[in-house]
C-alpha cells in the first residue's frame, strides 16, 4: 500500500487544500483535550465500541472492553431503573439483570445503544457543539458521553470525584473559512484559552488562512488591548460579548461559541 502513498505524494501539482493542519480538525480536538482512553484514537476502527467509557454515571458504551467496570454500574442503575416508570416485577428483574449495560443519571439515558441511533448520527449531533454549563457537571458528563469517535472522557463516580468531560465550542475567526472546535474544560483561565487560540489560528501554515489574515500577524497577545484581534463569545441568550469580563467559571457557564474578530469589525457587527 505504501506504493500508493508515494505515487500520491509525488504527484507534484500544486493543490490548494483548504483545511487545518494537525491537530487536525475539530474532532481530533476531542482526543487532544479529553482525558484519553488508552485506546489509540487514530486506529481505523474507531467505532464507539472501541471507545473507552467507564461510567458509573452516564452512558456506558465501551461495553466490550475488558476495562469496563460494570459492577459499580449494576447496582446503581438497577435502583434507578426500578424507580422509573411503571415496571412489573418481571420486567424489573429483566432490566436489573441488564443493568451492567445501563446507567442512568438523568432522564432518557438508560442503556448502551439506546436510543437506537447510528454512531455516525450521534456524533454529528454532538459535533454541533452544544455547550453545557459546567456547574452542573453531571449533565455535562452525560451529554458528552454520547461518545464521539475519538473517545470521550470517563466520568468516574462520586467516590473519586468527577472528571470534567469535554466542553466543546466552535471557534471561528474572521477570514478563516473553516472553524475549529476546542474543549473549554481543558483550560482554567482566559490566559490559557487565549494562548491556545493564538496557537491554533496564528501559528499555522499559511495555506490555511486567507492572505488577509496572514498579513496582519499583530495578534501576539489576543487579550492585549493593543492586539489587532479581539475574542468574543456568544452567550446563552445569543448576544455577542467580549471575552474576559466575567469570572472564568461564569464564562464557562454561559458561553456557546467563540469568535475571533478583527478589531475594526467590532463596531460593524459583522456581516
Amino acid at each position, binding site marked *: *500500500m505504501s506504493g*500508493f*502513498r508515494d*505515487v*500520491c*505524494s509525488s*504527484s507534484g501539482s500544486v*493543490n490548494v*487544500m*483548504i*483545511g*487545518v493542519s494537525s491537530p*487536525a*480538525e475539530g474532532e481530533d480536538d476531542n482526543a487532544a483535550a479529553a482525558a484519553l482512553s488508552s485506546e489509540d484514537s487514530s486506529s*481505523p*476502527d*474507531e*467505532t464507539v*465500541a*472501541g471507545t473507552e467509557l467507564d461510567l458509573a454515571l452516564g452512558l456506558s458504551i465501551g*461495553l*466490550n472492553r*475488558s476495562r*469496563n467496570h*460494570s459492577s459499580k454500574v449494576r447496582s446503581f442503575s438497577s435502583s434507578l431503573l426500578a424507580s*422509573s*416508570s*411503571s*415496571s412489573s416485577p*418481571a420486567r424489573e*428483574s*429483566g432490566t436489573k*439483570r441488564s443493568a451492567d449495560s445501563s446507567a442512568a443519571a*438523568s*432522564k*432518557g*439515558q*438508560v*442503556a*448502551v*445503544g*439506546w*436510543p*437506537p*441511533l*447510528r*454512531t*455516525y*448520527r450521534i456524533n*454529528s*449531533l454532538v459535533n*454541533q457543539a452544544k455547550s453545557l454549563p459546567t456547574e452542573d457537571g453531571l*449533565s455535562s458528563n*452525560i*451529554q458528552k458521553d454520547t461518545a464521539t469517535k475519538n473517545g470521550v472522557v470517563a466520568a468516574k463516580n462520586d467516590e473519586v470525584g468527577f472528571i470534567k468531560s469535554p466542553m466543546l465550542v466552535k471557534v*471561528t475567526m474572521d477570514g478563516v*473559512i*473553516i*472553524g475549529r472546535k476546542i474543549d473549554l474544560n481543558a483550560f482554567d483561565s482566559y490566559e490559557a484559552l487565549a494562548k491556545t487560540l493564538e496557537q491554533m489560528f496564528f501559528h499555522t501554515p499559511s495555506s490555511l488562512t486567507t492572505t488577509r489574515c496572514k498579513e496582519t500577524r499583530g495578534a501576539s497577545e489576543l487579550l492585549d488591548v493593543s492586539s489587532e484581534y479581539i475574542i468574543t463569545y456568544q452567550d446563552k441568550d445569543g448576544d455577542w460579548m467580549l471575552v474576559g469580563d466575567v469570572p472564568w467559571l461564569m464564562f464557562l457557564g454561559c458561553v456557546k461559541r467563540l469568535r475571533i474578530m478583527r478589531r475594526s469589525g467590532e463596531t460593524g457587527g459583522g*456581516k
Partner: protein
Amino acid sequence: MDRAIKLQLSTSEMNYFPDEVIEHIFDFIPSHRDRNSISLVSKSWHKIERSSRHQVFIGNCYAISPERLIRRFPCLRSLTLKGKPHFADFNLVPHEWGGFLHPWIDALSKARVGLEELRLKRMVVSDESLELLSRSFVGFKSLVLVSCDGFTTDGLASIAANCRNLRELDLQENEIDDHRGQWLNCFPDSSTTLVSLNFACLKGETNLSALERLVARSPNLKSLKVNRAVPLDALTRLMSCAPQLVDLGVGCYENEAEPESFEKLMAAIKKCTLLRSLSGFSEVAPICLTAFYPICENLTSLNLSYAAELQGNHLIEFVQFCKRLQLLWILDSIGDRGLEVVASSCKELQELRVFPSDPHDEEDNNTAVTEVGLVAISAGCPKLHSILYFCKQMTNAALITVAKNCPNFIRFRLCILEPNKSDHITSQSLDEGFGAIVQACKGLRRLSVSGLLTDKVFLYIGMYAEQLEMLSIAFAGDTDKGMLYVLNGCKKLRKLEIRDSPFGNAALLADVGKYETMRSLWMSSCEVTLGGCKRLARNAPWLNVEIINENENGRMERNEEDEREKVDRLYLYRTVVGTRKDAPPCVTIL
C-alpha cells in the same frame, strides 16, 4: 384451464427452446426471490438459472462461503453482502466480531469472476481488500459501502487509480480513517466515467482542485455528495461545472456567507434544473438552505437530518415549497407544527424519517415532535408507506388514528426515547395502539415497537402481521409467551431482534425448526441462559449459535461455566457452511 396444469405444460414446452431463449426469458425476472423460485422448478431450469444469474444478494455473509457462491453462480457480476447484525449499528456488537470482506474478494479474484458491482453493509473492509478489488476486476463499475469500517483513504486511492471503468463510488456513513492524502488525485486524467460520487462521511480535508477537475471531466456525473471540508465557494464552482446533477450532498461550514458568494451560489443552483435530491447540510448556516429555494419545487428527496443548526422555522419555510417531495429525512426540531406543514404541502410523500436532535433528553426542549405530528402526517399524506419516528411521547389514540388513516404502511418504526414509557394521557400500555397498526396495515413488512408493552402486543403481532419480515423489540413484554406469539404467528418472519426483554429458554427452544425459515435471531440482555443456548445448538446443527461475551479476555472456561448463567448477547443464524473460523475470542460459537 387449471393453473397447475398450465404451468406444467408451459415448463415442458419451454424445455423445447434452446437454453439461450429460456435464459433470455429469465432476464426479465430481476427479483432475487423469483429467481430463487425459478431455480427450484426443475433441474434444467436450475442449471440455466444459475449460469445466467448476474446479481446475487447475500443477507448474511456467514450463511454461505464465497467458494460455494462462485461454484453456483459463475457468471456473477453484482454482489451484495451484509455482515454484522443490525444492532451493531448501536454498538452492541464488538468491532472485531467479524464480517470481513477479504475472503470474498480473494475467492472472487482467484476464480476470475467478472465482478462489476459490490454493495456492502456492515462489513469490515481493509485497504488490502480494496486494492485487491481494484486490481482484480477489469470491468468493475460500482462500489457502495454502507456502515463499513476498517479502511482508510489509501484504499479509496487504489480504487480511484485502478478501476478504469468506475461509475459509482458511494460511501454512506462509514468509519474511514482519513489520511488526508490525495486520493481524489488518484483518478487518472483519462477517467471520465463517473456517474456517482459520495464521500460525505470523510472527515478530513478535501483536495478541492482535484475534486473540481474530476467533476469537470465527468459529464455523466449525476450524483455528487461532498464532505464537510468543501466550502461554499467551492460548492458553487462544482455546481457550475455540473449543472446536470440530479443528486447533491452539501456539507460545508460557513459562518456567514458573503453576499457575493451567496449570489453566485444561487445562480449556480438555478442552473441545476435536474436537481431532485438534496442532502448533507451538516454545520451550515440557515442562509445556505435558502440558496436552494429556486429548485425546491423540483425536489423529490430531501435529507436534512444532519442539519442540527437549522431551526424549526428554517425547516418549515423550506419544506413548505417542496410540493413534490417523496422522501423526507428531518430532525424533530421541525416540531408538530412543521409536520403539519409537511402534511399539507407534501402530498406525494412516501417515506418520512424524523430523528431526535436531543437523543438523551438533555435540553429542556418542548418543541420536538409528539404524537400530534405523527397523526397530522398520517392524515395529510395518502401515499405514505414508510416511517421512522423518534419522539418522547405517544398515545394509543394517536396510533389508532394513524392506523386508520394509513393502512398502507410497509415499514413502521416508532421509537419512544424513554423505554417503557406508557401512553402519556391514559398511562396504559401501548399494546392497543400497535395492535391497531398491525391489524390495519396488512402489507406491513417491518415493525419496530417501543414504549410500555406487555405480552398482549405480541399476541396482536402474531395474529395480524402476516407479511411481517423484520421485527425489532426493546424493553417490552412480560413472559416467554410474548416471544412465542411472534414465532408461532408470523409466518414470513426473517429477522427478529430483541433487547432487554424478559424472554427466556422456553421461548427460544419451543420451535427450533422455525429458525431454519429465518435469516437470524438476536437476543441481548434477555433471560436466555447458556444451558438453553447449548441445547438449541445441539438440536439445530444447521444453525450457528453465537454467544458474544462481555468479557473479551478469553473464551469461557468450559468447566467453570454455569449453565444457568444468563447470556448477554445471543446471535443465531442459519448457515450451510457450519461454524465460521474467524470468530474473535469474545465470541463463542456453540
